[in-house]
């Protein structure tokens, strides 16, 4: 029975994908995508309730006992990631009703989108390292398809860089899995957590840990491995950009958090020191790169990189408070980032471009959109009392607690520079008059389009406000999740059954 709680969030997206593919010629396909994601949100909520009540739950697929079979496991972090994935997927699938052209629907946009969501959920729920590799591939191949769907030259250009760099990371990941299996004889993450500390040759373990760090680092787009991201993320449909921006890099961050709290904890002085440097440099390069850009989506792409740095910082500091900050940041960031890309899409529809030099006057035409932009934008920058403020507050407090003055200073300065980029978008796109002298009009959007574009944006903004005004339950939750990460006994017991040795 427990297995079904874990398997449903995986089965639903694939079922939706098959149905959406079969019905892709009519209007039914897109509504199936929306319905499927409503169901996914329900399944995720049930899973979350279960995990809140019972603690870590695990299910063995096909009744093969761990560590031999494939295990699905959910602790608080996995569960919250699945919930947030479902929320983002639902918002984007509603947005896609007005954003994705018919031609792309006929080519199977909705099927690819739901396979992507299935892959993301799988990566969050699996308890097996090779299975994680397989979910990464599911995600990769569907994201390749989504990225080049439409076939504009820029998309092909960005696609080449995205595909090649991600394939390298995949191969590194696979080699790491092979070597780790050779040393331990197991691929089950919980079993690895037991076996790896007992190995004689800890030096080799650290070496493999660095291989994983690079492989997941490419996925998470950290310095100096992020170049594929700003090359590709501004080229596809806005729906695709939004879901990529919200979810894909976060799977890399999640995998890093999982492996470097559960398995590779033997030499934290070495590995987490590297991560701390990586975090600081990721934050800085990302935000400085954004300052140099002049296109809404390019600015936002560089900000993904810079924000990833905060999450890595939480992992690198490796204290209960810092990890809680990282979990909180993950949740807050996915909502805010996906939302900003969605707003960018509407701005392009109304004003005709995302190039800041060629648009303007959006505040006058669409004041509601302007307000809905300000909420996630200021949340990203960390204005109180929005969600980003609490996320940054917890992380900086954690840094000061262990007297990491330098990293705390970097985090604060990057927050300031983020405001610079956000005010740039505000001033150029919303405030200044349109450079052509004409006011953009809402007339280009039909009432139906307007509804399906604005609802997801408004809902995600409302969620940001809720987290901002009532942060306490979320912080408490993040602290509990961090507690589970730092003391994986419950996780190991749930997966392997019986007390861990």
């Amino acid at each position, binding site marked *: 029975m427990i297995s079904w709680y874990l398997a449903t969030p995986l089965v639903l997206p694939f079922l939706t994908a098959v149905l959406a593919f079969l019905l892709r010629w009519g209007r039914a396909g897109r509504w199936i995508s929306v319905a499927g994601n409503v169901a996914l949100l329900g399944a995720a909520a049930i899973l979350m309730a279960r995990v809140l009540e019972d603690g870590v739950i695990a299910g063995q697929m096909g009744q093969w006992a761990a560590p031999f079979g494939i295990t699905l496991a959910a602790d608080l972090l996995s569960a919250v990631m699945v919930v947030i994935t479902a929320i983002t997927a639902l918002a984007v699938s509603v947005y896609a009703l007005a954003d994705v052209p018919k031609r792309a629907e006929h080519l199977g946009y909705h099927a690819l989108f739901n396979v992507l969501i299935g892959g993301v959920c799988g990566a969050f729920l699996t308890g097996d390292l090779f299975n994680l590799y397989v979910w990464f591939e599911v995600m990769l191949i569907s994201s390749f398809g989504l990225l080049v769907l439409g076939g504009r*030259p820029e998309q092909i250009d960005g696609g*080449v860089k995205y595909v090649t760099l991600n394939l390298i990371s995949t191969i590194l990941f*696979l080699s790491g899995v092979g070597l780790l299996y050779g040393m331990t004889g197991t691929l089950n993450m919980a079993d690895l957590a037991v076996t790896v500390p007992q190995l004689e040759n800890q030096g080799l373990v650290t070496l493999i840990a660095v291989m994983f760090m690079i492989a997941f680092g490419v996925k998470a787009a950290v310095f100096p491995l992020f170049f594929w991201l700003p090359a590709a993320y501004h080229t596809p449909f806005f729906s695709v950009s939004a879901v990529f921006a919200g979810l894909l890099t976060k799977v890399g961050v999640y995998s890093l958090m999982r492996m470097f709290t559960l398995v590779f904890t033997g030499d934290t002085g070495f590995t987490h020191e590297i991560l701390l440097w990586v975090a600081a440099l990721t934050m800085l390069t990302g935000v400085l790169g954004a300052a140099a850009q002049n296109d809404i989506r390019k600015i936002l792409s560089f900000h993904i990189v810079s924000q990833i740095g905060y999450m890595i910082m939480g992992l690198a500091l490796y204290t209960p408070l810092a990890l809680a900050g990282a979990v909180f940041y993950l949740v807050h960031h996915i909502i805010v980032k996906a939302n900003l890309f969605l707003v960018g899409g509407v701005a392009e529809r109304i004003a005709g471009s995302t190039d800041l030099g060629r648009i303007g006057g959006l505040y006058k035409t669409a004041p509601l959109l302007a307000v809905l932009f300000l909420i996630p934008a200021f949340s990203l920058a960390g204005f109180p009392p929005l969600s980003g403020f609490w996320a940054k507050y917890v992380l900086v407090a954690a840094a000061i607690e262990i007297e990491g003055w330098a990293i705390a200073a970097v985090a604060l300065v990057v927050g300031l520079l983020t405001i610079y980029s956000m005010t740039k978008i505000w001033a150029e796109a919303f405030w200044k008059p349109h450079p052509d002298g004409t006011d953009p009009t809402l007339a280009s959007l039909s009432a139906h389009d307007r509804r399906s574009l604005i609802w997801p944006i408004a809902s995600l903004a409302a969620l940001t406000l809720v987290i901002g005004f009532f942060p306490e339950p979320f912080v408490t939750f993040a602290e509990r999740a961090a507690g589970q990460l730092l003391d994986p006994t419950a996780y190991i017991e749930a997966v392997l059954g019986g007390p861990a040795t």
Partner: protein
Amino acid sequence: MEPLLALTIGVLVATSVYLMLARNVLRFIFGLILISNAANLTIFTAGRLTEGQPPLVPEGLDAPAVVVANALPQALVLTAIVIGFGLFAFALVLMFRAYSTLGTLYSEDMRLAEPREDRAS
């Protein structure tokens, strides 16, 4: 057997890194295909090598009597080969499409998505 395979893997990785450093993306893809085979061989080698011992359990026993080949890494390698096949088929088609739309195979000239400042103006 292990030293021989280790050497093979080393040569494969060296060759593929050389290929991947090329600016021609087609050579890059060939390098990627080679290095993925090196990764597959790594899994195969790391998972215990035996000679002429298929993983079969004799009749009447619950476990094999002697040390037999490890079937798991072979299953992993098979999975990885299948996945890799799909990915590389996609990558090759993408490169072909890139050549026909962008008119070049050189990564230096692929600047449509990120135009140079000095040339854009």
